[in-house]
């Protein structure tokens, strides 16, 4: 291929950056679009976001559902909230890999040399994750209903569930993004294992009383328990304000901590 790359005959029109110093919303929107495209175009991410959650739901309902009977009703009504939260977490965990890749490839370094809103690249990952997760959660709920899940939620409960899910995904994704800034690409791939295994040690899948006594303390007080119980209440149409408050306190606190830590790490760390 022989090509010449002539300089433009006239001095280039200086479109230049506009005088506006900050356009943070535009920056975040651009970054969100970037990440959404990546999610939609990578087979891996489509499998992680949609196929895997449906598979997990099926395993719990079809395989375990026959053997376990839930407290007061079918196991399916008991387990769907646990599976939903687990899927939201796992799906958010992919953000750690995406951020670690951006760090390694030098992409984040380039973004940091642009006059843009400082952590817009990270917010792009987070917002794309919210959209992806809401779509995935809707699919999982539909599949659950097809298996025989009968939620008692009214419209208000569903809206409450949606808002709660957004808060949970924001938190889970920010935790993942922050881990992605410090971990290698390989290590970041196991971040979603946190979200896959820690929920087992909660009231998500079996009642805490059935666990060995030494686990009770952790299982009752770890954040996944109030988070899953909140979802359970909302989907059953009987939300408990106290539980939801506890869950929101956990999520809000973790969210704040990871946004702050992520912001600092983003400014300090360069490509490795």
């Amino acid at each position, binding site marked *: 291929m022989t090509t010449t*790359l002539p300089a433009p005959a006239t001095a280039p029109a200086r*479109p230049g950056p506009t005088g506006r110093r900050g356009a943070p919303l*535009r920056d975040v929107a651009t970054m969100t679009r970037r990440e959404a495209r990546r999610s939609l175009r990578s087979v891996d991410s489509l499998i992680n976001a949609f196929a895997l959650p449906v598979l997990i739901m099926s395993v719990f309902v079809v395989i375990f559902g026959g053997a376990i009977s839930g407290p007061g009703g079918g196991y399916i009504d008991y387990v769907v909230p646990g599976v939903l939260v687990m899927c939201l977490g796992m799906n958010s965990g992919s953000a750690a890999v995406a951020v670690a890749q951006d760090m390694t490839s*030098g992409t984040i*370094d380039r973004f940091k040399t642009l*006059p843009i809103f400082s952590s817009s690249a990270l917010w792009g990952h987070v917002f794309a994750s919210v959209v992806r997760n809401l779509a995935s959660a809707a699919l999982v709920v539909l599949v659950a209903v097809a298996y025989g899940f009968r939620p008692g939620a009214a419209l208000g409960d569903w809206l409450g569930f949606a808002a709660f899910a957004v808060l949970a995904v924001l938190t889970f994704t920010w935790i993942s993004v922050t881990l992605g800034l410090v971990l290698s690409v390989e290590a970041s791939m196991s971040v979603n294992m946190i979200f896959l295994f820690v929920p087992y040690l909660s009231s998500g899948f079996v009642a805490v009383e059935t666990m060995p006594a030494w686990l009770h303390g952790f299982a009752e007080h770890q954040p996944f328990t109030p988070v899953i119980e909140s979802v359970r209440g909302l989907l059953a149409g009987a939300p408990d304000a106290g539980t939801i408050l506890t869950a929101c306190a956990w999520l809000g606190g973790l969210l704040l901590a990871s946004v702050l830590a992520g912001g600092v790490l983003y400014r300090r760390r360069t*490509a490795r």
Partner: protein
Amino acid sequence: MNDPMIDVRGLRKSYGRTDVLRGVDLAVRRGEIFALLGPNGAGKTTAVNILTTLVRPDAGTATIAGADVVRDPAAVRRAIALTGQYASVDEFLTGEENLVMMADLAHLPRRTVRHRAHELLERFDLTGAARRRVSTYSGGMRRRLDLAISLVADPRVLVLDEPTTGLDPASRSQLWDVVRSLAADGTTILLTTQYLEEADRLADTIAVLAEGRIAARGTASELKALVAGDHVRVSFQDAASLDGARALAVAGLDQAETDDKALALTFPSTEPVRAIRDVLEHAETRGLAVAAVSVVKPTLDDVFLALTRTDTRSAEEAQR
């Protein structure tokens, strides 16, 4: 007006107990192509990271287009563009989407975003591949896109960190052409490289960075003059002629290095034309069969080796 576009004074940076930069001074004029040349680990990337606001220096100052990298990083970022060691383009986006994204991030007026993207695709000969994902691009195409992306906001200073590492010779010389045309348009260019040829062919000024210090600076020819003058190389048709030639009374010949395989002598000379004439005259008188003569100019490799060698020696002495 005569203020340098890049002005670096006494820059220092350590990581733990390793002193990466030990007092670096640089001044780059507007429209100049300035090469920071050094082996791996010399501190090139650290210098680039400080100049592009990614890392804060421990001591010293650096200003770009009049803005201090520590006190006013936002102004520095508006003036510069960085093309890093890896082509940091998004694989899962098309070439066009990559450019549109960067135009959005540069806050170009929305209606000009697409126009600017197409203009750059055309300039970098990527129009045909504009709607293909970057994952299908060759190494050379990625680099061109990478550079196009850097130019979206029309930066006043372009920082290229080892821009041609891993490129084939054709793509490399194509990239050099682009860099030259940018400098001709008034863009100031700071590039790092470990390729002497690249610095030699491209840069107006070269600074050799060795062990965290500028070991030498100047134009390529000034640096070459630092090492030594020219050399004369004479090759002969047979071994007997080669042997006979060693005894000739020609200035500098006593310092000749012999290449027995090529039947050639190479010796330093301050007046190479005169030396060649002397060699030919004497050879004819004595019946020596000369095959070829040539003047050998020192390469930047020689400079580089000489500078880094002294540097190692003085470092060893310092340790003693």
